[in-house]
């Protein structure tokens, strides 16, 4: 059993963050945007836990729990907004909601 370098853990978190960022920038569907945000938050939490494992402290895991709470609150409001937008505009294209008028 060989040891995993600290950098590899951070690299995995960075790759996941990059994939989420690409999804956030490239996709137009509002549901995919929300999923990409979940991937981004998850990658950030993974980086915290990797750091917690590096130092053997619990603080990183506490930060992961806070990120989890924030993601849960964000996704509930975000999905309610998605329902509203779909109800009003009959589409989930993010280009359709770029007008900012009733």
């Amino acid at each position, binding site marked *: 059993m060989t040891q995993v370098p600290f950098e590899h853990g951070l690299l995995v978190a960075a790759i996941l963050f990059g994939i989420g960022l690409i999804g956030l920038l490239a996709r137009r569907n509002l549901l995919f945007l929300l999923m990409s945000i979940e991937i981004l938050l998850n990658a950030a939490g993974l980086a915290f836990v*990797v750091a917690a494992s590096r130092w053997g402290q619990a603080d990183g895991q506490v930060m992961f*729990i806070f990120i989890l709470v924030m993601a849960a609150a964000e996704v509930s409001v975000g999905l309610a907004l998605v*329902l509203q937008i779909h109800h009003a505009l009959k589409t989930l*294209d993010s280009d359709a909601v770029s007008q900012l008028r009733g």
Partner: protein
Amino acid sequence: MTAVSSTGFYVFSGVAIFATLLVVAQRSAVHALLYLIVSFLAIGGVLFVLGAPFVAALEVIIYAGAIMVLFVFVTMMVSPGSEASPAEARWGLLRALAGPASIGCVLVWELVQVLSAAPGVALSGNVVSPKEVAAALFGTYVLGVELASMLLLSGLVGAYHLGRRMLYRDREAS
């Protein structure tokens, strides 16, 4: 000091990255959700291997369970509009991804450069037990717990309010 199981770490990480790539590349939201659940389960495995069993359980229960159930419900309700938008179909996913992906590759390359220049440190893999996490959570970070509870309450009220307005509009229309 126990070392992190390297095979488990790399297998779980590979599955997580592969599944996350498939999430972003899917056309249908339901297929993307299935891959996203796989991705969250794999990240839960990574967390477990890294010596964080409590957080790994939270990842599976809350991310792969609760949050994904919300997504599945909303995807069911908006199902006809959840296919790829006309703009995506016109551009083609690869062309749309080319710009962000190339910029992202530069970032990843730079990150690899910076990280490989740093002195190597192995992950300890010491298991941080739920007891220690709870002691830190309700000791040092107890103010954060209060703030998190207020955030959850505001999220609850906000989601309820947004959902309620839609019901009212339905009633007025009928």
